[in-house]
């Protein structure tokens, strides 16, 4: 099992290593815990407040793990123009999957689009979106 110390060691020669470190911690542990923040702050000679400030600034980093599977649904303008708002009630009518808004996957001529992990989906309609949620 990779530890925070291993991750820190892997980035020790980088300039401005904090974001790469946080990405790895988030990936391995599913969140950036209080203890991880202390350990990172100590290793980089930063205050805990500075590390907390960075973690809380970026949408990608979570301070607590999300127990449910996560789907990111693009709700930016191009997907709105292609009808994504009609899919939102489907997401709201269930609680098994955490559906998060994301602003743009760069699939703007084939929306509405969504991402699960690193897999991308396009041309979603009500039926396809339901199937996608059920398969998760």
């Amino acid at each position, binding site marked *: 099992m990779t530890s925070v110390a291993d991750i820190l060691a892997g980035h020790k020669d980088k300039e401005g290593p904090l974001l790469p470190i946080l990405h790895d911690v988030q990936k391995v542990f599913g969140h950036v815990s209080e203890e991880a923040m202390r350990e990172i702050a100590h290793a*980089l000679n930063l205050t805990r407040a500075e590390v907390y400030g960075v973690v809380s600034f970026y949408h990608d980093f979570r301070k607590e793990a999300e127990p449910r599977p996560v789907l990111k649904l693009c709700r930016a303008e*191009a997907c709105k123009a292609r009808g994504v708002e009609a899919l939102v009630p489907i997401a709201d009518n269930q609680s098994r999957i955490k559906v998060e808004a994301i602003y743009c*996957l*760069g699939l703007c*001529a084939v*929306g509405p689009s969504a991402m699960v992990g690193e897999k991308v989906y396009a041309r979603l309609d009500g039926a396809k979106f339901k199937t996608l949620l059920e398969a998760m």
Partner: protein
Amino acid sequence: MTVRISDDAVAIACGADAVAAAFIAAGVAVERVSSWGMHWLEPLVDIDGIGYGPVSVDQVADIINGNALSLGRIEDHPFIANQTRLTFARAGKTRPLSLDDYYASDGWLGLARAREMGAQATIDTVMTSGLRGRGGAGFPAGIKWQTVARASGDQKYIVCNADEGDSATFADRMVMEGDPFMLIEGMAIAGLAVGADKGYVYIRSEYPHAIAKMEAAIKLSAHLVAPFVVEVRVGAGAYICGEETSLLNSLEGKRGEVRAKPPLPALEGLFGKPTIVNNVLTLAAIPWVLQHGGEAYAAFGAGRSRGTMPIQIAGNVKHGGLYEVAFGITLGELVHDIGGGTASGRPVRCVQVGGPLGAYIPPAQFHLPFDYEAFAAADALIGHAGVNIFDDTVDMAQMARFAMEFCAVESCGKCTPCRLGSTRGVETMDQIIAGKNVDANLALIADLSETMKFGSLCALGGFTPYPVMSAIKHFPEDFG
């Protein structure tokens, strides 16, 4: 028979992997190439130059047996034939991570030319080309490069802004996924020109395919660009990091808060060192400019907008995708002649050009030529050249509200007009949508927009008034 199918994220999201697997299962070899950029036809199958699309798995057998209806020669398709592809010359034709394909299609010739003529002549060539920053601000690339070249510093950096967060834009993503060596070559040329040996590509985390391709391409080409070194850094879901100073803070491992300018990043950029921050499309245009010369590039375009612009036609459009063309084409041509109108078949109500900070433009202004100055004169902006089309079902009051909401979600919080103004804007729009004191609240929105426009530190707070006020101006019937 060579079957080519794109492995661009659009193709994959539309089912290209399953189609490719079906061809392979039938014993046919498949090459995964970049996307032609005809997104409505993805997954597009290219067999010896003849196109089929959009293809589903159940059509594969018919295509192999010659029983499927083709689109004809892809290169002759009007959407492709009418473009002027300089930056996207390889789109659809080469395997993104094949150095052989890159060499065979004039790869590395720009870098070779730059090495031959030296730093100052390289900068002069970029200056002559008239190339302006493609990220949105349109600042002349040559002047920025000259500033960094003249700045003194023991270390200089090339930073590629690949934080393409604007809705209706995907050209950066297509470059990184489809032609990553071209971007690396452009960065290496920039490094040579200003004396920088280190480059960073800051890619948003929403683009996992682009990150993977760039990382692989950097490894494959490291020996070709040495001593210049390129590294990918991944964003963390903050739209504001597309703003250059906030991107630099993020690269340094800080909160992505905007810095006040001056000092310019060209003089005090990454870690306080002289830094070129250029958009993907700016750097990707460089190899062509060096190979063919500044005059050849400047021969395309209109007014002070020289060269070509990879325009992204998106949203509710029939024929959406990547359309690279010289500046000067009108919005109407883009929306109707090329885009074919809406995908829904309903009338076009408006387009938003330039992402979430761009103005909403009604059909009455579709005569506007695509040109930085012409757009600015009409209180609009080209931005990263995304054209997002809406049909007549759009509620413009909701879109104006969303512009404020987006600004509130993505504000870095450093300056008050943006941080507080956006939230007050959402509340005031809610009042208007609910029909409460509409006239007074519209006056309040106009006043607030004025404050945000002139009081914000960067374009997020400063340009959010564009979509809001243009929606109110052109579509007053939707407000109260």
